[in-house]
């Protein structure tokens, strides 16, 4: 059924007709109405931990327009710029500017309204849309639709609420996020025996012989010992035991035969620091290409912790998609201290926002470059399209920050009003939806069909709009539904914001 549908689409493309055909210029699908598991879409969530404020990056108030209020200070503002060809304005700084120069045509910046100023709660809601889809997170929903054939459909390198599983108890556990804390060494858990002892003279040190020996040991264990033992007879139906035995028959052989221990390793042999060759492990043949872009992904200490954990996450994210291992990946900006990231805005707002926006944008840019220069190989072979052509990056964040600059390296608290950056060829790109209000720093909402802003007219300078003002931006539910719609995933009760979506 799926194959015939794909054939039909290709036929339509050849004939150059109708919605759902290849877009002639880029060779990618647009506007397909229903998800086809054999024609996957990929989702990468970058959790911008701590409150990535859109007012400080892609929806800034220009310094010349910002209100100064006697009691409140000055609305946070910047020198701003709008790169040529971009409909998105940014603070006039190299990395945001460069990001727009490269990706504005595939980016949407939209104002949004969060529902919590608690970090973990807001993080979880930013990826589960306040449970609007039976509690599934976005990545779980994508994995459930497109990830059936993947060994690790949904990999989560997130922290806090970004790594929380969804609340849908009916979801197949395979589609829950596989938690990864160290992308460098994670691939080592993809095999029970490869690279377990160094190469040497003994037969057991030969990887091929060892594989045969382990197969025999597993056979006697699973086929005989697990049946004979009194323990097995006492606990024949124990759920954990059943799950463990089931994994031995299903997921574990898949992980091993896919050779993911080597294909997902992006760090080359580092001699004494990571002696892979001596242990019979050959890293991915893309290791060199990846590390040209993401040099900080190298391990830096005896725990295998990389110099730059976000770069290491990006490296693994790329390989997970490249090898067909996953369709959904969550990364998280770990911050320089492992915890606060954008939340360092409490101490110094401008510095924190600058440092962490620069970091996530730089790494995202490198990741997009890797994905855009790698051909997507589908079930029928090479497609002539890139992996990036079917990927979406969501810069999820929990909330915004306070809107007023009170001077002296000021800090900010949490604020519900904010915005979201999404970059993907699957969106109607090059759009800013909503606009900053120079009188109070709020980002106004926008018409869901046309995208026209709904400014907070009629407020006194320095007066904040109410949170139930109808001109406030869309909530988490609508954003969630829209992003899944762009990835051809539908669910009951889905709210969408058509202005964000490509027109068929």
């Amino acid at each position, binding site marked *: 059924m799926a194959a015939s549908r794909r054939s039909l689409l290709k036929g339509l493309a050849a004939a150059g007709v109708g919605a759902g055909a290849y877009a002639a210029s880029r060779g990618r699908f647009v506007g397909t109405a229903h998800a086809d598991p054999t024609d996957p879409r990929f989702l990468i969530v970058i959790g911008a931990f701590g409150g990535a404020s859109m007012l400080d990056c892609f929806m800034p108030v220009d310094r010349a327009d910002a209100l100064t209020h006697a009691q409140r200070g000055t609305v946070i503002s910047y020198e701003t710029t709008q790169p040529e060809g971009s409909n998105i304005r940014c603070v006039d700084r190299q990395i945001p500017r460069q990001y727009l120069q490269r990706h504005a045509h595939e980016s949407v910046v939209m104002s949004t309204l969060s529902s919590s100023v608690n970090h973990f709660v807001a993080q979880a809601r930013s990826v589960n849309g306040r449970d609007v889809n039976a509690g599934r997170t976005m990545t779980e929903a994508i994995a459930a639709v497109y990830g059936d054939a993947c060994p690790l459909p949904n990999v989560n390198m997130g922290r806090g609420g970004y790594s929380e599983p969804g609340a849908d108890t009916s979801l197949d556990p395979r589609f829950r996020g596989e938690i990864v804390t160290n992308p460098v060494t994670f691939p080592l858990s993809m095999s029970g025996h490869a*690279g377990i002892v160094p190469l040497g003279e*003994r037969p057991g040190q030969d990887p091929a012989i060892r594989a045969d020996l382990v197969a025999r040991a597993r056979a006697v264990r699973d086929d005989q010992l697990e049946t004979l033992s009194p323990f097995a*007879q006492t606990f024949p139906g124990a759920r954990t035991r059943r799950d463990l035995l089931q994994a031995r028959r299903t997921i574990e052989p898949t992980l091993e035969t896919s050779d993911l221990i080597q294909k997902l390793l992006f760090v080359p042999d580092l001699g004494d620091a990571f002696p892979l060759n001596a242990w019979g492990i050959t890293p991915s043949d893309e290791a060199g290409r990846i590390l040209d872009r993401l040099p900080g992904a190298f391990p830096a200490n005896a725990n295998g912790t990389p110099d730059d954990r976000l770069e290491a996450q990006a490296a693994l994210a790329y390989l997970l998609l490249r090898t067909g291992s996953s369709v959904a990946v969550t990364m998280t900006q770990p911050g320089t201290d*492992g915890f606060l990231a954008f939340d360092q805005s409490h101490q110094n707002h401008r510095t924190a926002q600058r440092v962490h926006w620069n970091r996530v944008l730089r790494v995202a840019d490198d990741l997009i470059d890797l994905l855009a220069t790698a051909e997507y190989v589908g079930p029928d072979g090479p497609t002539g399209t890139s992996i990036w052509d079917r990927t979406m990056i969501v810069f999820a964040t929990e909330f915004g920050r306070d809107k007023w600059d009170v001077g002296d390296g000021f800090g900010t608290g949490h604020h519900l009003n904010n915005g979201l950056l999404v970059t993907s060829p699957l969106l109607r790109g090059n759009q800013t939806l909503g606009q900053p209000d120079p009188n109070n720093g709020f980002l106004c909402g926008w018409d869901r069909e046309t995208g026209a802003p709904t400014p907070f007219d009629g407020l006194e300078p320095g007066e904040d709009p109410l949170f139930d003002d109808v001109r406030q931006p869309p909530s988490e539910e609508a954003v969630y539904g829209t992003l899944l719609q762009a990835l051809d995933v539908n669910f009951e009760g889905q709210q969408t914001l058509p202005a964000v979506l490509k027109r068929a």
Partner: protein
Amino acid sequence: MRARVLCALAALFVGCPSEDAPVETPPTAPVYDLGEPTSVKADLKMKRWRQLQLDLEGALELPPDDVCNETGLYDCRILHNVPLGGVSIENGLFRPIDALSATTGLAVERFVMQACATRAVRDAQAIAAGETPLLFALEPDGTTLDRETADPIITSLYRRLLARDPLPDELDAVYATHSGIVEDGGRTLEWAWMACFAIGTTTEALLY
């Protein structure tokens, strides 16, 4: 006492059987071998990394830092922490995952296989040095194995890893793998390593 009263009451109507009357044998049910009793709750938990580590340390008498190190450098207690039920404060993971992850089984296998390999190598070194090995008293490079050598090793593995003696069928099953191991290119030391791995990764060894 209560039976006598009842009997006396009944005798008023039908009379009690005399002491000499033949006693009827109650019908007997066929004897079934029910095997081990089945747990009703069956609420088993997976050993977390710390329990696994301590069990292997004790069973194979290995120093804590020698149980498992990936590529000889990266401590498995840290590296496989999360799939083995740990937390990662550094990653904001404050509660263990409440289910098995996709890599749990393989991470456990790596843990046990490395520990068993270390014990096998140390015992082989002891034998080469003319000392008494702790566990694997055998001819490391041999291609034959008799029951007199194998059974004490298997029994010791069961006692150390599962805290019980093996059943005769379990002894037979583990012993029988030797010929296949040799067929695949292994030697007796490899058989011992794999026996340790197989027993140490049974669900009995991993769940409680």
